[in-house]
């Protein structure tokens, strides 16, 4: 039986943070991770269950200086439909399209996805290559404090992040892309969506004439967290996107990943996929 002793549904961020400051809390948003994990015993409820779905400060997508801020409660469906996202980060629309199913997209929040910190998280890979930041708020001494941390530093292990127990993930900031920016996402699978991927790949950068710069490469499901691929990035940074560069980058990707064997795929196969699909993605970028 669950050990929930108190249920609250705050209606402001301040109220939610007060609650977090005071006690042991399980945070509930869409429920798409909390419900199955609590049923299976993987997640044990803390004494307080806090439903943050009605906290207005956590909603919305808006321009925030030279970045776009996506509230933690924004669902995957909301992200796909938003005009700012469609204009500046179509790769997020692409990733959303491969996410689970319509029913789950309608309920799954970006904040929940990030806090769940799955090594195969579909939305997390593109966010990494877009240099996104996680925004966290707390009220440790009665005064609200907000901090930002690059998403790449936020993930510590499967299901583990740097969020302190008294902090709430309030949103994600994504810097507006520079001119000539491209970003792509690939998720391996036999289905368009409804799949936990054996591997996924995000590639972004700036392409001026035929030279690449500000290259970002991230892989999913080949490490305990979604990871950047520094050697692959180095193989592309400042280079012409030609056959030799593409082959070298694909090989660098093959060499630098350390995947595991599990019920979905073997390590050997994951590396083959990483190499072959990195090559294919770069081919597409080159042809675009």
């Amino acid at each position: 039986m669950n050990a929930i002793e108190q249920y609250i549904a705050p209606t402001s961020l301040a109220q939610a943070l007060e609650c977090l400051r005071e006690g042991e809390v399980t945070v509930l948003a869409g429920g798409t991770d909390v419900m199955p994990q609590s049923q299976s015993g993987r997640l044990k409820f803390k004494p307080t269950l806090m439903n943050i779905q009605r906290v207005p400060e956590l909603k919305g997508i808006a321009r925030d200086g030279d970045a776009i801020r996506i509230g933690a409660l924004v669902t995957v469906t909301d992200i796909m439909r938003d005009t700012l996202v469609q204009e500046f980060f179509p790769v997020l629309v692409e990733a959303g399209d491969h996410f689970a199913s319509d029913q789950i997209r309608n309920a799954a929040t970006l904040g929940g996805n990030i806090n769940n910190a799955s090594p195969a998280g579909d939305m997390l890979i593109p966010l990494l290559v877009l240099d996104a930041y996680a925004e966290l708020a707390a009220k440790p001494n009665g005064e609200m404090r907000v901090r930002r941390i690059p998403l790449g530093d936020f993930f510590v292990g499967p299901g583990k992040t740097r969020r302190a127990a008294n902090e709430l993930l309030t949103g994600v900031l994504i810097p507006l892309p520079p001119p000539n920016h491209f970003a792509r996402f690939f998720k391996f699978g036999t289905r368009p969506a409804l799949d936990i991927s054996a591997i996924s790949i995000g590639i972004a950068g700036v392409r001026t004439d035929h030279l690449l710069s500000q290259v970002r490469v991230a892989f999913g499901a080949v490490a305990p967290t979604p990871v950047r691929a520094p050697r692959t990035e180095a193989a592309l940074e400042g280079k012409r996107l030609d056959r030799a560069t593409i082959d070298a980058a694909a090989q660098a990707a093959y060499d630098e990943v350390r995947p595991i064997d599990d019920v979905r795929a073997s390590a050997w196969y994951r590396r083959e996929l990483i190499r072959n699909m990195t090559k294919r993605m770069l081919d597409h970028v080159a042809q675009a």
Partner: protein
Amino acid sequence: MKVAERPAAIAPDTLIGKRIPKMDAPEKASGKTRYIHDINLPGQLHAKILRSARVHARIVRIDTSAAKALPGVHVVLTAADLPEQRPIGVAKDHLPLKRDRVRSERDEIAAVAADSEEIAEQALRLIKVDYEDLPVISNALDAIKPDAPLIHPEPHGADGSQLSLKQGMPIAFSGKKDNIAMRFDYAHGDVAQGEADSDVVIEDTFKLHYVTHCCMGVSGVIADFDASGNLLMYSNTQVPFLHKREFAEYLNMDPARIRIIQPPIGGGFGSKLDIYPFEVICVFLARAARRPVKLVFSREEEFLASPTRQPVLLTLRSGCKKDGTLTFRQVHTLHDNGAYTSWGATTPFVMMQTFSSLYRVPNCDYHTTAVYTNNPYAGSFRGYGNLQATFAVEAHMDKLAEAIGMDPFDFRLKNAQVPGEVTGQGMSFKSCGFQDCLKTAAARSDYQRKRRDNIAARSASGPIKREGSNPAVRRGVGIASMLHVGGGAKIYPSDGCGTILKIDDFAHVTLITGASEIGQGSETVLSQLVCEELGLPISSVTVVNNDTDITPWDVGVHASRTTFIAGNSAIGAAKKARAKILAAAAKKFECAEADLTLRGGHIVRAASGEPLIDLARLMRSLHFSDKAELVMTTFYYEPPSQHQDKGFKGDVSAAYAWATQVVEVEVDTDTGIVKMTRVTGAHDVGRVLNRLGIEGQIEGGVVMGQGYALTENLMIEDGRMRNPNFRDYKLVTAPEIPEIDVSFIESMDGEGPQGAKGVGEAPAICIAAATANAIENATGVRIYELPFTPEKVYRALHGKADKLYWKPWKPD
């Protein structure tokens, strides 16, 4: 309709071949249908089963004291509380609640009945079990090693005595010192001679994997004893009358005091043909609690505890002459029987039919050994061994054709039987549309040309330059056929079905049939056949089919038999009613019976269509007359098939059915992903009855076959199921389905109802076989093990897969 109104003349019409919506569809689409999960009896308790934490172990101690003390718990049972417990199942080797040993992960150890599911689950967590581990056998090959530990060292009996089984059954279980559960041996002709006559001989090992039914409605049962000790069960069994008899045996009750009501089922596919421990356990709980008890599985439990499809390790040796004539097939299989015997062990009944009779084979030798392991046991699953057998046969048809340089379609056509042939196994092909199936499927799919083009593309140097396409993707096309019983299968003493039919004062028909509806549309088809005889619209029929106290006997829904046998039974009863009606009308209108017929709800003059009286009026005039007659008729139809002899020979079905399917794929050689793009099928169904229903059966079967070939894989390691959930056990989803083109070959079977034959299992049977051939056509690589997951295909394409060989073996 006003009494004075009568249509001028009623033209002949027919329901046969029309698209008739399923009668229960409106209710189901409104969410009003109450499945077993939705049924709640007043005062009911909820049951949960504690399953083993070990794969193979001695049970040292079970402590249920804490569970019994939990508020809300009414009954906790273990084997110790049930000394009279009898073993169940096909080989009677399976105690519902395990006494001194667990032999698999799914083994039932204890059961709880409580006020709610939550309390029952909590009670399970309070039960303490001490085990002493035993070595695990998780591979059938290990089970036949001379020093292998015995899974069943001594057989169970009600009084602990050694249990031996009925004479004549091919079962070897009576305290023998090995793990062999069953063996099957069959032969016709002389394979040694056949091999000597061959110009080409090939031999390969095939490995067929575990998949499971995944009915969308999980298993459940409700048991309720009344004040006089009569048992009422709400059960989704596909064989209610067999169950009644068997439950009576297991519960030591008079079968007359057991009533089974079948609520609408959330899918069957053969999963509900055996008796499973959870059903017997629920009855024990109801008896002990003296309250109704409801037991429903979780999805995880459904995966863990349901029977699987029979996994098979198979070596096939076959040959042909250089003119393309098949000469022989020699088959050895090793069946992993799991811990207890269910219907999976008897799949050889069907498999030997395919090896002996799919295409003309003059000599055939077949041997199956089913061995106990600590794996999950297999049951019956749509196709019943035929998918596995056809996978091997059709791989060899392609390989033999290639070896003699013959087109694989021509090779198949040359060896395909025609009407009138009797096979070496004694199956008499009266109606036979096999050659038409081959020709139609090949022509509609343009198989021969595509096959040649794909080979050319494969051999051409450099990547294929197709506009906008990915050079890593190769196209392939593959063909395969199947043979299955289409008129029942006489494996029980009777393969019949009874019907009771009554027509009321308003010309409304009540059709009481022993045949169950499992979602396949039998209700609608039976109504259609009756209305065709009686000239009534389909809305005139109410079907009663789900209560053993009311319905006449039927052996059950299996072997694709329902349309054929229940259909003929319904027609028989309808014909009797028709005769009675026409006799009365002839008398009333002073003419010959032959001058009259039934059309559009009226009795009409056959020649002109002139209506004489509407049927309802005639019924009332019969009823409210001096003679006071109601129209009530009965009919029991027993198909004219034979029981097989001890050598498995005989004309076991009243009809046989064929299908040919051509599967087209795209193989991405960079990932191994196989996309099934198109399936073109030609099905010999005898005659199309309900066109909408039969298309639905075929489309569903094709996609089930697609899952078996490409996506579904129940991963069992060391006896443990690694993926008991939909997240990692992949059913086919809507975006993945191929284009499906279906043609019907109407061979008009002489015995079938309106000429129809059974089709329920057919469409699933040869998809995987055709897919293997298609992948070979696309890539030049043949894969001998299922499923064709991306990783498996990728490994095969890149030389990272070893070809399995199992030396043919059978026990001495």
